[in-house]
């Protein structure tokens, strides 16, 4: 057993973890950060495009610039951290005592802590999860793999590339491939609208004349020694394949950008309750999971569209951990449940106390214009010109507002009649 015990141990050294660990250190906590790769920084290390930090730093930074601000802060504050440290197991000794078993280059180590901030990010959905048949040949990558190859190691994944999925990741990769001289044959999107921000549709696809195939799916990938072609077809409104619409697209590479899923394997193993809408843990307004003293933030909690939200959540989780350590728990007189109403696909957090202001993050199911976001139980309304599945709704509920509700607060999107 390592000597001493920590107030909090942060699992994962990406943006959420770095924000949580630096905040915890600033709050005077005994904090340790564990990262399983050999460098701190996580995914933004390979995000060479701008669009980061507009909320948090009020500047337009690349992902790399953004994350190095946190890495520098982490080092300047002298936060204790290990890279190449792989969490194997969490043992719950008591509500205020957890033991971690961690694989390191120097063997298995054990750490004791009062709380945990779990910021392991997300994993990419793989081709096997989206029902594509055909040959399993070289030339099929996830977007993250292709990005690591190109923007960390400087290796082009292919020459004629077809991209699957029009979320921001897929769009941004399309631009990077095109800039570096590859021919991007198209971006295939199963939904009737693009998954990413309009800005990215314009600047990543239209700028380079890359076709976007909406309401299309890839059904097969074929080739012998390498990908040679993909078979695409149109889909109906209920996402069923339209017979007779099959078409072949020649390409040597298929890049799958089919979305992200919170990566919370070890939390699931110890019984953290999961939200089927977010695929992440159920949390309260300090981002504490259903297990006392285990907090989460960033893409392990919910897939965020901006890294700014990830670090904001990391800092909130650190505040939660501090309160937990000081009071031996997160006390509240009454938890109010946040309930998903009309056109709300997911919302974070799930429980609010009314003892602090809370940032609400939500995503709609379908695009709508001229709407109100409404919380009927507390009489709050916010007008929005447009809501889109690609853009999270982020707004603050004040503690006095939350206090008006008895046991639940519904969040819904309704048409703004007076328009």
């Amino acid at each position, binding site marked *: 057993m390592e000597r001493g015990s920590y107030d909090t141990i942060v699992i994962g050294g990406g943006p959420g973890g770095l924000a949580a660990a630096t905040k915890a250190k600033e709050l005077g906590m005994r904090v340790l950060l564990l990262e399983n790769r050999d460098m701190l920084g996580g995914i933004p290390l390979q995000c*060479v495009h701008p669009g980061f930090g507009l909320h948090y730093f009020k500047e337009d930074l690349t992902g*790399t*610039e953004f994350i190095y601000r946190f890495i520098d802060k982490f080092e300047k504050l002298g936060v204790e951290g290990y890279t190449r440290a792989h969490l194997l197991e969490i043992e719950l000794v008591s509500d205020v005592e957890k033991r971690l078993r961690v694989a390191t280059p120097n063997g298995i180590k054990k750490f004791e802590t009062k709380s945990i901030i779990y910021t392991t990010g997300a994993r990419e959905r793989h081709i096997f999860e989206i029902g594509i048949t055909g040959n399993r040949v070289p030339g099929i990558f996830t977007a993250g793999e292709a990005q690591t190859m*190109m923007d*960390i190691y400087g290796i082009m994944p292919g020459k004629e590339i077809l991209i699957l999925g029009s979320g921001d990741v897929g769009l941004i990769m399309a631009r990077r491939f095109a800039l*570096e001289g590859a021919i991007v044959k198209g971006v295939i999107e199963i939904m009737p609208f693009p998954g990413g921000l309009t800005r990215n549709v*314009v600047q990543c696809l239209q*700028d380079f004349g890359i076709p976007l195939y909406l309401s299309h799916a890839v059904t097969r990938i074929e080739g012998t020694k390498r990908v040679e072609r993909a078979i695409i077809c149109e889909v109906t409104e209920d996402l069923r394949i339209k017979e007779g619409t099959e078409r072949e697209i020649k390409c040597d590479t298929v890049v799958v950008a089919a979305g992200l899923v919170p990566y919370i394997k070890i939390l699931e193993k110890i019984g953290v309750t999961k939200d089927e809408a977010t695929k992440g843990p159920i949390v309260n307004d300090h981002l504490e999971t259903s297990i006392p003293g285990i907090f989460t933030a960033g893409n392990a909690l919910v897939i965020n569209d901006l890294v700014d939200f990830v670090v904001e959540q990391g800092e909130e989780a650190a505040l939660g951990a501090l309160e937990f350590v000081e009071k031996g728990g997160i006390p509240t007189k009454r938890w109010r449940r946040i309930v998903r109403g009309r056109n709300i696909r997911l919302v974070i957090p799930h429980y609010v106390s009314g003892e602090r202001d809370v940032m609400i993050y939500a995503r709609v199911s379908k695009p709508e214009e001229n709407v109100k976001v409404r919380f009927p139980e507390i009489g709050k309304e916010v007008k929005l010109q*447009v809501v889109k599945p690609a853009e999270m709704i982020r707004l603050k509920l004040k503690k006095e507002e939350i206090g008006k509700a008895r046991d639940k607060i519904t969040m819904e999107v309704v048409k703004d009649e007076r328009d």
Partner: protein
Amino acid sequence: MNEIKTHRITCIVCPLGCEIEIKTKNNGEIESISGNKCPRGKDYAIQEITAPKRVVMSVINVKGSVFPTVSVKTSKPVLKKLIPKVMEEISHIELEAPVAIGDVIVKNVAGSDADIVATRPAPRLK
């Protein structure tokens, strides 16, 4: 001949994403702009039709560091038509570690008035 050309662009200034239609005359003069729900859209449309600009990002090979590349960007948006030239100019560069964030790699790249600056450090391997 006084032909009118119609361009359609999507405004990206705010999440509304208005579809803006711009009509231009032969000499490039703007005849009309419609579809924008606010004046910011008009400014954006004029910029996009007359001199669209973008920030360009890439990676450049570097020797003697943890990763074999540093990431770079243009210090400000460059004219869209200069982008291929910018990419061409930086494709031959090979750097030596160390490189720090903000280091200027190329001054006035492709005559764009923007510099190529490093956005990811490349510390020297010990």
